[in-house]
């Protein structure tokens, strides 16, 4: 067992994540049962996913396709020859007391996830397996319950396990890694990646070592992580716990620890149940997967533009900041909406401002999303155009956006109905300007004395007199003319 020597401040954390993602196929991995969340217990089952005598698995081609596409999106090498293996252990949520998984020939190897900092976290592999059922214990644990109920609806749901190299060095990086994985998976549509429904699950392997050391420290596996935030908190807690161990001169024990959300601590889950020899061997019920190059290249062409590529393009072509590009691309549907607004308005910067600003604000207030809102990109673009061509002021547009997004109204109709159109008639604007200059002689004097602020005050006065309808650019021009 390796030792961590030295003061805690000299240690660094080494983290690897094992992420399980349920694939969003119509049917289960090895049978025709529907793959769905939330159905009444044991209603989505058949002889195959219940592991009844004589039943046989048949691999779901769509699950293989989804996993390969996920692998392609993450830059993995796709194996042209792969196979399924049996992982043998007894547990009542597993109908056959073995799990069909992949051992030494996973569907993909390599690949990486790029964090916002630009750091690349390499992947070891992604493999395909079947999910287990769900145990509901009458007591606190399986060993201390009078009975356990099992729901096999989830048994046989296709699951991909994404294993990272131990290259993550902080809780924050772990959360960023998960966020990026989630974005990629939702982009390519292979999973709904809902951590609270269990369609994305994460175990963290954490160790610490003297800063700069090459050898890995003793690792602890943390389970029962139910949100991105709990992944971060558990890792932070565990790093501190390990540092404390080292400070106290205690040895770190290789073990599995469970995260307790309530107390914010981890506790040892080590038990005989977890000391397994899984006795992997190739599943003789399934034939090896041999994916032809033609099929793989077809799948590759079907991949959508991925978040990282989108971000680069937004910065390069639209002149957006890295941050804005990140926000706009975190969900594919949001990015699609933004791009439609940008294209229809011809004004990507304004489109970005609207999407991240007032559109978001009115949707949040109404507890709606872009998908549930009635306003479509063309309407938002029309509103941007009304501002750009001087029909309405930016301020008036903010009054219009709510009706557009929530009620789905046409911006021009709302503008007409509420009389929000700007006055660009030179004579009318000049009249307001002259009226304001006359009424605010003090400010005129201040401005002339060099107080720049007085200019903005005068603009405000003109707008007030016009009840917001004067074209503000015209107002500024005239004021400068008169005062200059």
């Amino acid at each position: 067992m390796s030792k961590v020597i030295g003061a805690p401040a000299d240690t660094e954390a080494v983290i690897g994540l094992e992420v399980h993602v349920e694939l969003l196929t119509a049917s289960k991995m090895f049978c025709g049962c529907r793959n769905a969340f939330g159905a009444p217990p044991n209603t989505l089952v058949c002889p195959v996913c219940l592991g009844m005598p004589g039943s046989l698995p048949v691999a779901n081609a769509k699950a293989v396709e989804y996993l390969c596409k996920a692998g392609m999106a993450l830059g993995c090498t796709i194996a042209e020859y792969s196979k399924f293996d049996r992982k043998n252990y007894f547990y009542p949520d597993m109908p056959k007391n073995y799990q069909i998984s992949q051992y030494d020939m996973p569907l993909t190897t390599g690949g990486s996830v790029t964090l916002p900092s630009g750091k690349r976290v390499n992947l070891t592999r992604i493999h395909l397996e079947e999910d287990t059922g769900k145990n509901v214990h009458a007591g606190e644990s399986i060993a201390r319950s009078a009975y356990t109920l099992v729901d096999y609806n989830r048994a046989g749901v296709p699951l991909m396990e994404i294993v990272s190299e131990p290259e993550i060095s902080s809780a924050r990086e772990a959360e960023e890694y998960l966020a990026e994985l989630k974005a990629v998976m939702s982009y390519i549509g292979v999973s709904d990646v809902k951590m609270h429904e269990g369609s994305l699950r994460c175990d963290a392997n954490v160790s610490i070592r003297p800063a700069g050391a090459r050898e890995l420290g003793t690792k602890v596996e943390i389970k029962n992580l139910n949100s991105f935030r709990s992944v971060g908190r558990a890792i932070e807690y565990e790093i501190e716990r390990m540092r404390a161990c080292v400070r106290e001169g205690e040895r770190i024990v290789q073990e599995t620890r469970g995260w307790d959300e309530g107390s914010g601590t981890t506790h040892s889950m080590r038990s005989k149940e977890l000391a397994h020899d899984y006795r992997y061997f190739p599943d003789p019920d399934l034939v090896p997967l041999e994916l032809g190059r033609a099929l793989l290249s077809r799948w590759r062409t079907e991949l959508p533009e991925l978040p990282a590529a989108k971000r680069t393009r937004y910065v390069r072509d639209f002149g957006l900041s890295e941050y804005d590009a990140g926000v706009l691309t975190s969900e594919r549907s949001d990015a699609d909406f933004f791009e439609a607004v940008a294209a229809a308005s011809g004004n990507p910067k304004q489109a970005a401002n609207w999407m991240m600003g007032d559109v978001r604000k009115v949707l949040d207030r109404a507890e709606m999303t872009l998908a549930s809102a009635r306003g479509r990109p063309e309407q938002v673009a029309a509103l941007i155009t009304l501002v750009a061509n001087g029909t309405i002021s930016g301020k008036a547009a903010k009054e219009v956006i709510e009706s557009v997004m929530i009620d789905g109204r046409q911006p021009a109709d709302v503008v007409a109905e509420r009389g929000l159109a700007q006055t660009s008639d030179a004579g009318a604007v000049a009249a307001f300007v002259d009226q304001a200059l006359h009424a605010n002689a003090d400010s005129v004097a201040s401005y002339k004395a060099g107080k720049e602020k007085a200019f903005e005050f005068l603009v405000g006065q003109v707008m007030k007199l016009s009840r917001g309808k004067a074209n503000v650019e015209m107002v500024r021009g005239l004021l400068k003319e008169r005062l200059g």
Partner: protein
Amino acid sequence: MTMNTGHEIREAIARGEVSAVEATETALAAIAATERRLQAYLQVTPERALARAKEIDAAIARGQDLGLLAGVPVAVKDLFCTQGVRTTAGSKILENFVPPYSATVVRRLEAQGAIIVGKTNMDEFAMGSSCENSAFKATRNPWSTEDVPGGSSGGSAATVGARCVPIALGTDTGGSIREPASFCGVVGVKPTYGRVSRYGIVAFASSLDQAGPMTVDVRDSADALEAIAGFDPMDSTSANVDVPHYAAQLRNDLKGIRVGIVSEFEESIAPDAAMHALYKRAYEDLRALGAELVDVSLPHSKYGLATYYLIAPAEASSNLARYDGARYGLRVDGPDVFSMFDETRAAGFGPEVKRRIILGTYALSSGYYDAYYVRAQKVRTLMKKDFDEAFARCDVIACPAVSCPPFQLGAKSQDPVAMYLMDFFTIPMSLAGVPAMSVPAGYVDDLPVGLQLVAPAFEEGRMFGVAHAYEQATRHAWARTPIVYAGDGHAA
């Protein structure tokens, strides 16, 4: 005329001389009359059979086309799941298991008009060569009720041997169809691995298990295999290879056929003068039919048993893990769920099954996997190559099916290795996945002995052709009558 074969029954039904109900009643009466002495069945299903026979008669009356097995009574080994009918695999652990589905082969038999009359006895989970490992009873050999019928498909062999039914289904993993067929004087066919769907057949060793017919004559095996063979979308290992009309490939001579004689096997059988003489005569009969005999070699066959007893138990140890009392079958409660698993399995499995689970678990264990399981798979590949090379020199192989005639009940039940040796001549074909069959070849000590014929993968038609010519020329199956006999419509 006689009505001892399926094709005779079907023809009689087609001519309107007999109904499916009558044929079924005859079979049920034959079973009732012989069962006390034979103990071939774990369950007879007269009501289901007669109801089905009425449907067949009604369909015929409506003018529907007759299926390949229309009105033919068929027994199936209790390893095949039958919807609504208890399926035990010969084990206490499944004593009360009623599957909600039927095996694909059962559905295909019924789709061709076959009438399933009952579920036959077998060694528990098909592990055994004598039927004595059944958790319920020991089946007797119709030729000598002191002797075993062979196994594991012993019940199917015995009921066909006694002419209760013309056709029964068995399964063969290392010889479980061919050895009992030899012992009971019937035809028994292990098809190419992948020829027949395994869906709904309680698994023993998935990479070896194949279902096949056990029949009075070769023609019935040809028809029954045609009925059950073919790709099944429910079994990824079933082959998408067309199924020919095998009956059209039956021959009456062997002109132009090269028959391979395996030199290693001849050395093994030579010390037993009676067995040696029987097989020598069989090869001469083949030559007399026009075949050319050529020597071939299967150099890796001597590793067959060792290879088989790593691969089959390894797969079995995993396949049988599901019997834990949680979902179906026997449950023995314990203080917690893991105790329940332990108690259920301790009470539910017999000694031979436990032996093989332990063997298999050991062979797959970390640190031993490469030395045992991986090595065994490599030998298996070499064995396939042996057959490829042999079939470059011959069209079919003829060799012993067994090393001895049937033995007495209890004679080998305390000596697992002696029992394992019973499969010496049948295991290499199972490991190579090639089709093989046993066809009656005469008698030693007044007990039947079978000749094994082997063909390249998916060449069952060629194998049937040779077997038919040999059977029609020698007529060993009709030369004598077993002591428990229900043939010619007579209840024994």
